[in-house]
């Protein structure tokens, strides 16, 4: 395999290349760094590229591979880490002036430790929207169109993966922060079931909603990285998620929202979604229209919980240094500091109502999964604050979160998969929502869809196939 092609390999291919001896971890690192050098001046996806640390790690992995010893399924695979996860020896900046000059972390976050144990080669840390609380992730740009944002809050991770700088990356998702950037950057994002993966060593935004997970360029690649992030307790709950179990679409039942906030999307998104549903039906899945009116109430519930929990976590900063937090986030956190306990508890009780409604929908229709557009819109600019969808004006933050946050409230596992391009050539995506801890079956379904999809136009325009952005 030539060095020029190595950065284009997915996680599964890269791991196989190391096992087969056609590439060493150092080869993969060199290719990744070469790609970073080519795209990063325009992409701005990294807060730190850990060249020395990664080189030392690659040498160790090289020696082990040469002896036929492989740490785990990710031996030598280049991966980036969102800058809210602790990585031993590197500061955790959280995209915030609050943490300027922070000391290097003394230990890895638990999932980072797991990735290291699985053999992952940690290339660097990626840009996050400030405090993981936003959908822009400046200064990172979208590799499909560098005039647009990469989404957020795991925007640096998504942009780095989409551009081929790394094979995969970690992200976190409190209201959509893995799925939003995955959708606008044309890659796969997995938000696992709440509590499946440890959050220890990951800076919280709102701990009753926060979930960590992988971003990669295919369902298979994302599943492999998820497998590497699982500990024994997690694996006991979901079984092996990679290799992804085979699934016959015939006999599966997929719920499709018939009305409400999951259907209020731009025409280009609606067209791609209809096509996805037709493909699933043609593949043998039974498509069932469903209605979950309770989801209309998602936004105030989500925001009340986020603001209260974030205010609690950042209490000291709010008292002593809140000038270091940017205006919009500061106002949100300040409001959280004054939110009454009864308001917070009302939000949690309403959340329980949404959980019951979604569970009822799954049970009544015997659903294997619910499928919906990941986002109601395609790409948006750094300066865009509002959008008009279906004749309704709404804030970008509301528009992006209203289709993703319902499943943070329920804690459900979700896989976002690219579903094609708009006429303007921007990616759109569909999300598959499963039952709690049903990751293996959900990934099977997502991959079955991925295989059915006609991705020629998508592949042709993908940044991974361009030598520069």
């Amino acid at each position, binding site marked *: 395999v030539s060095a020029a092609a190595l950065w284009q390999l997915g996680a599964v291919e890269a791991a196989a290349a190391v096992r087969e001896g056609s590439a060493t971890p150092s080869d993969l690192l060199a290719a990744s760094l070469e790609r970073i050098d080519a795209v990063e001046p325009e992409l701005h996806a990294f807060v730190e590229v850990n060249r020395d640390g990664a080189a030392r790690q690659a040498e160790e992995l090289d020696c082990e591979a040469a002896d036929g010893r492989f740490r785990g399924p990710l031996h030598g695979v280049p991966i980036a880490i969102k800058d809210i996860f602790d990585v031993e020896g590197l500061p955790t900046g959280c995209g915030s002036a609050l943490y300027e000059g922070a000391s290097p972390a003394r230990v890895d976050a638990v999932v980072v430790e797991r990735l290291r144990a699985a053999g992952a080669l940690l290339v660097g840390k990626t840009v996050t929207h400030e405090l993981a609380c936003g959908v822009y992730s400046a200064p990172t740009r979208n590799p499909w169109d560098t005039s647009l944002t990469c989404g957020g809050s795991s925007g640096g991770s998504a942009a780095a993966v989409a551009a081929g700088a790394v094979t995969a990356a970690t992200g976190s998702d409190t209201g959509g922060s893995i799925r939003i950037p995955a959708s606008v950057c044309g890659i796969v994002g997995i938000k696992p*079931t709440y509590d499946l993966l440890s959050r220890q060593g990951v800076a919280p935004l709102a701990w009753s909603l926060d979930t960590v997970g992988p971003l990669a360029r295919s369902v298979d690649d994302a599943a492999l990285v998820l497998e590497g992030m699982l500990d024994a307790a997690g694996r006991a709950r979901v079984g092996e998620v990679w290799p992804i179990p085979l699934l016959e679409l015939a006999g599966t039942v997929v719920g499709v929202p018939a009305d409400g906030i999951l259907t209020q999307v731009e025409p280009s998104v609606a067209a791609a979604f209809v096509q996805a549903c037709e493909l699933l039906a043609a593949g043998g899945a039974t498509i069932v229209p469903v209605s979950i009116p309770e989801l209309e109430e998602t936004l*105030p519930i989500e925001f009340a919980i986020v603001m209260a929990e974030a205010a609690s976590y950042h209490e000291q900063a*709010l*008292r002593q240094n809140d000038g270091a937090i940017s205006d919009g986030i500061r106002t949100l956190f*300040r409001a959280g500091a004054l939110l009454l306990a009864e308001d917070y508890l*009302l939000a949690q009780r309403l959340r329980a109502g949404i959980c019951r409604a979604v569970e009822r929908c799954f049970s009544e229709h015997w659903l294997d999964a619910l499928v919906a557009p990941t986002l109601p819109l395609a790409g948006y600019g750094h300066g865009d604050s509002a959008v008009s969808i279906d004749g309704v004006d709404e804030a970008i933050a509301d528009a992006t979160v209203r289709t993703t946050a319902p499943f943070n409230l329920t804690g459900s596992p979700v896989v976002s998969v690219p579903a094609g391009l708009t006429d303007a050539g921007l990616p759109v995506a569909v999300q598959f929502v499963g039952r709690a801890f049903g990751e293996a079956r959900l990934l099977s379904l997502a991959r079955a869809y991925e295989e059915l999809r006609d991705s020629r136009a998508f592949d042709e325009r993908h940044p991974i196939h361009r030598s520069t952005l």
Partner: protein
Amino acid sequence: VNDVEATRLLALARGLIWTTEEAQAVHDQLAGIRAGLERARATMDVGGEEPASGSAPERAGR
């Protein structure tokens, strides 16, 4: 004392020193969230129900 001033004083009592303009922004944010929660309560009728215990997935029926 109007609502915005009350917000500013409430913050002050908690050691948070804000200008009237800052208190206005927080007041507006809180008012929007509370209105949304009340709308949701009217729609979903959670009155009288005890919150479920456990993690979100457990509440989702597992």
